[in-house]
């Protein structure tokens, strides 16, 4: 367990690198605050359908409204449903401070498509899971029990293939928003 000043320093490094890579950063004290921010972002982006990972801390965050339907990504039988969703909400196994990178793993409750097919990806990251480097994040995985895919996400999808004019969201999400739980509320 890191002392709070060190954890805060890692959060700051992560946030700086994430923003440099084109991502968006919100620090929230607790899950209730995270839920408020997530719902505000979805409202502002006029999202009508949201895919939500089936993990503790994520599955209950998003509220369905008259304008907005919410479905658990673990229940999807047809991949078109992800493609039609306006946003995907996931957790993250870790964050890498050096590069502002989210670390996700494919599993039954966390399909690959949630963070990939919708144009907006919102990730809930526990501040305690921010590590310094990629090598430190690797050390958290056991070589004999790897997930089928470890996904490192650093900001939005981008391309420079048209006259090296950098553009976001060519195939993956155009926006990547990270909500970091700082634990300050507890």
């Amino acid at each position, binding site marked *: 367990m890191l002392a709070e000043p060190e954890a805060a320093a890692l959060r700051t490094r992560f946030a700086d*690198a994430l923003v*440099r*890579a084109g991502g968006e950063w919100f620090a929230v004290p607790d899950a209730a605050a995270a839920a408020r921010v997530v719902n505000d972002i979805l409202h502002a982006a006029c999202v009508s359908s949201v895919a939500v990972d089936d993990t503790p801390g994520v599955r209950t965050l998003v509220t369905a409204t008259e304008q907005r339907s919410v479905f658990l*990504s*673990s229940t*999807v*039988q047809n*991949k*078109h449903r992800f*493609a039609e969703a306006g946003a995907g909400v996931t957790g993250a196994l870790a964050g890498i401070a*050096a*590069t502002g*990178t989210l670390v996700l793993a*494919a*599993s*039954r409750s966390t*399909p*690959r*498509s949630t963070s*990939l097919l919708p144009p907006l990806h919102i990730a809930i990251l526990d501040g305690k899971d921010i590590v310094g*480097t*990629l*090598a430190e994040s*690797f050390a958290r*995985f056991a*070589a004999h029990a*790897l*997930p*089928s*895919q*470890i*996904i*490192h*996400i*650093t*900001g*939005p*999808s*981008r*391309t*420079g*293939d*048209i*006259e*090296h*004019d950098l*553009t976001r*969201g*060519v*195939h*993956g*999400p155009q926006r990547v928003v990270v909500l970091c739980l700082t634990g300050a509320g507890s």
Partner: protein
Amino acid sequence: MLTPEGDFDARSRAALATPALGRAVRGTVDRLRNLRAIAEADADLTRQRRAAATEARTRAIDKLPELLERFTRNCEARGGVVHRAPDAASATAIATSLLRKSGARRVVKGKSMVTEEIELNAALEGAGIEVTETDLGEWIIQLAGEKPSHIILPAIHKTRHDIRALFEKEGGTPLDASTTTLCAHARRRLRERFLAADAGISGANFAVAETGSIALFTNEGNGRLVTSLPRLHLVFLGMERLVENFADLAAMAEVLPRAATGQDLTSYFSIITGPRHRGELDGPEALHVIILDNGRSRLLEDVAFRPVLRCIRCAACLNVCPVYAEIGGHAYGGTYPGPIGAVLTPVLRPEEHAARELADASSLCAACSEACPVGIPLDELLILQRARNATLRPKRALRLALRIALSGLMGDKAHGTSRRLRFVAKVLGAGTPQRRALAKVLPMLARSEAVRALPVIPPQSFRELWKALQAGENTRAR
């Protein structure tokens, strides 16, 4: 395969006679070179990172047969199937047979130089399988019926107007030439293909022996779609692209994005270990890895040229090469352009005269060797290749080399030593925040990049460094 039309001399003459090509290529490689210079600005850190990556790659090549065997065992233990293809024909035959057996008719492809090397698309189309390239640059090239002209930016030679024309023809609807419109069009059209595809084909930046994993570094996200949506995933792996373990993979992640695009890490970095697990909703049901030799074993035996196998295809050597900037990638005639292509192509295809003469496509300025993150002595190998050629073919080389070298060197006037010029260059060097801000108010600046981007200038000049060193200060070059 080298293109049959003319020899290198004729192709480079044709390229030099097309000024638009030179402008498009030069502007982009200058920007990439400057982005790399910024990402590698910390000289000590860069030296450490490169040393670690070079060590990991050298060790992997030294024990390649053992690592290939370990990779195969571990990949298959995780449910993958590994195939070894001695040459291009057997690699395409394996893929065709796997796709046929699974009844796959529509294939989406991620970017892969190895599949270019074996001309996979032509073979699959010949077998009645529809193949769609999904990397934006590769799709543009596929629509144009051309080959990539740069390792990481395959459509570097295409202008937005060329691209608009290709997209309008493909989609049947009029478009404007803005990047936003063109990208949105590609996203919409290719999304349909992803959702309908039966199989995905990708390359691999690295394979990890200890875990049997495949690592992919991408920016657009098409690599993730190709490896996540279709029920079958075929991976094409160059035989030499092994690393021993995750620690080595982390070392590669420190150098590859910085050297390629000047990013600290690409937008996506996926590590794939076997097909989807039971109960997972997406990811392929079957994963096949086709390991391509195609001359690499012979290269392993060629002690002098062996370091070439360390190459991680970052294209940093292309972006600093004065010859590449002038003639673009197509003039090289093979799959791999630039200095790495000039070294690699002749040793992969020693029987082809046209491949050997690529060694002449260099001024021997050694910028390529300096840019290489895994320490391949490209300029020395070019000289060695010339020496080998000289025993076969005495004349001609010198004349051509001089001509191209001069045309490359002439352009490099931006290096001034006066303080004032350095200040201007520092503020206006491509990729700096100041420049981006200025370019918004001064459109002429943006236009000037079409001709040549100012290089990034180090914070201290050589003279200042020298003075400081002589004064005995412990000043570091940064």
